[in-house]
């Protein structure tokens, strides 16, 4: 007989969470048991330690925009599989599964909305869709909404959450970095504001393109932000990473983020920025003119 034979099937990683009735949840950071309704009301910020839970793109739209003002565009744009890419799975199957699992079409929502009555153009990424990776769809949708901002003279906001460029579209993903940055150059020339909000995590090709090009760059507390992921940096250098490496506070200290904003103050902060940046914008633009498609 093997004394060390495990008699139970296996230890489930989620036991502790499962034991809690599902009206409760536990803070990933401090372990505090939180009443879900309270957490939701607190915009998914821990009531004890202010840890910012990762939230869906939809949640950011609710937090940032005035109720019922979001006018999405390009809702039905989907990834094709130009490279006919297969790793352990076909990319085309990966897309299908992810679409049905998440209810999302790809990793970004784009459209128009209002913040305290002011019209804006906005893109919000969702980390839940293949790690928020940027392929042709993300690049094209962001480019089109940037075109919209330019046409209607609107401030532009991007909420980033991404592991980087999407490998399964090869160089075409890489080109989305150039494409989105080129569009931001046009907004810059027109004197239109671009505000970039970095959430947990923002890395790779997204950081190395639009995310770092804001007139103002905001970050959520504790968000992981970098070019190479921490594991890659550790492997490449063989060194221990400094305390807090690549966290929002680290970037603030090194001069790459303007401001770290608590989620509860996010909307008011954006609103304040829009006032300062209003010079070349059309604050009376009626977003109801937009045909949601």
């Amino acid at each position, binding site marked *: 007989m093997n004394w060390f034979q495990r008699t139970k099937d296996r230890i489930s990683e989620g036991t502790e969470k499962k034991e809690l009735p599902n009206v409760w949840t536990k803070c990933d950071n401090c372990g505090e048991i939180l009443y879900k309704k309270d957490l939701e009301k607190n915009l998914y910020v821990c009531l004890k330690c202010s840890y910012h839970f990762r939230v869906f793109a939809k949640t950011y739209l609710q937090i940032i925009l005035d109720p019922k003002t979001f006018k999405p565009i390009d809702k*039905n*744009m*989907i*990834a*094709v599989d*130009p*490279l006919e*890419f*297969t*790793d*352990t799975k076909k990319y085309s199957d990966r897309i299908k599964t992810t679409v049905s699992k998440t209810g999302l*079409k790809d990793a970004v929502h784009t459209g128009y909305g209002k913040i305290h009555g002011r019209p804006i153009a906005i893109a919000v990424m969702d980390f839940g869709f293949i790690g928020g990776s940027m*392929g*042709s*769809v993300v*690049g*094209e949708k962001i*480019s089109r909404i940037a075109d919209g901002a330019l046409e209607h003279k609107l401030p532009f906001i991007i909420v980033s959450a991404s592991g980087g*460029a*999407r*490998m399964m*579209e*090869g*160089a*075409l*993903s*890489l*080109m*989305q*970095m*150039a*494409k989105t*940055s*080129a569009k*931001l*150059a*046009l907004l*810059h020339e027109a004197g239109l504001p671009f505000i970039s909000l970095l959430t947990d995590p923002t890395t*790779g*090709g997204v*950081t*190395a*393109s*639009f*995310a*770092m*090009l804001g007139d103002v760059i905001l970050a959520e507390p504790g968000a992981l932000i*970098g*070019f*190479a992921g921490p594991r*890659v*940096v550790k492997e*490449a*250098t063989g*060194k221990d990473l*400094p305390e807090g490496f*690549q966290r929002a506070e680290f970037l603030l200290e*090194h*001069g*790459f983020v303007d401001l770290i904003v608590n989620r509860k103050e996010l909307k008011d902060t954006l609103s304040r920025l829009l006032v300062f940046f209003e010079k070349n914008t059309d604050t009376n633009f009626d977003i109801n003119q937009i045909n949601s498609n």
Partner: protein
Amino acid sequence: MAVILEFEKPIADLEMKISEMESLSDNVDISPELEGLKKKLEQMREEIYSNLTPWQKVQLARHPDRPRSLDYIERMAVGFVELHGDRLFGDDHAIVGGFGKIEHKEFMIISQQKGKDTKSHVYRNFGMPNPEGYRKALRLMNMAAKFGRPILTLIDTPGAYPGIGAEERGQAEAIARNLLVMSRLPVPIICVIIGEGASGGALGIGVGDRLLMMENTWYSVIAPESCSSILWRSWEFKEKAASALKLTADDLMKFDVIDGIIKEPVGGANRDYVLAAKNVKEAVMKELETLEQMPVQEMLNARIEKYSKMGRWGEMK
């Protein structure tokens, strides 16, 4: 001694045989046999080098004897003056910048430089730039715009350096800034991939009016090894990854990512530096001629239009 890649062994063996026979031929007349073998060698070269797999092209792009950017600059440009430093932090040796005259034209030339031996590899950080490299490039490209000189970039990097200092000094910001500025600089920008074109590290000096690739180079969002390690969770699948990523010049021509392919000497640029440099020079001058005929505004619009079209997407019914 030249480095022989695995798939080049049959060629090397035959070459060896021919040279042995040639040394004997002083005493015996074996010219008919020799002629036959030389013909066979030609055929074998043609056969092997025109049917390279993507992974074999990656290997040629990384060939230790392959010409580096300074080898091209030396053969293409006269009066090259190297300029150093980003005026902010330091001088990055993985990126070379300066001006030189190619045929009758003054160019600002920015390039990624790899080493050739241990010492120079370390000095050049294996061609992996730090943020100050991209910022030096930016400074020099702005200078080119100020003085109305066209820009030529030579790309050859295994990636931007993923170091602690690089992150602290904003590697992502440095690359992003270059993409934004390069998309609008009012002078012709011609980019040529002469070796490895790895991801954001390559793109950081790779936005312009024309992007050309040499025949045996690669360009992708990630190196095949890293792709293999992430998607297959093992380094073993690099050959598969190289095929899946569609990273060759022929593939990228089909996806409209690049504007042209530059022929290499048979067997790769490492076989003949002079011819390789001549081919690059001719391709660059041809593109410049077209670009110089365009009014600046038209050229800038075309540049934006070119990137606007990049990618492939669909519509869900």
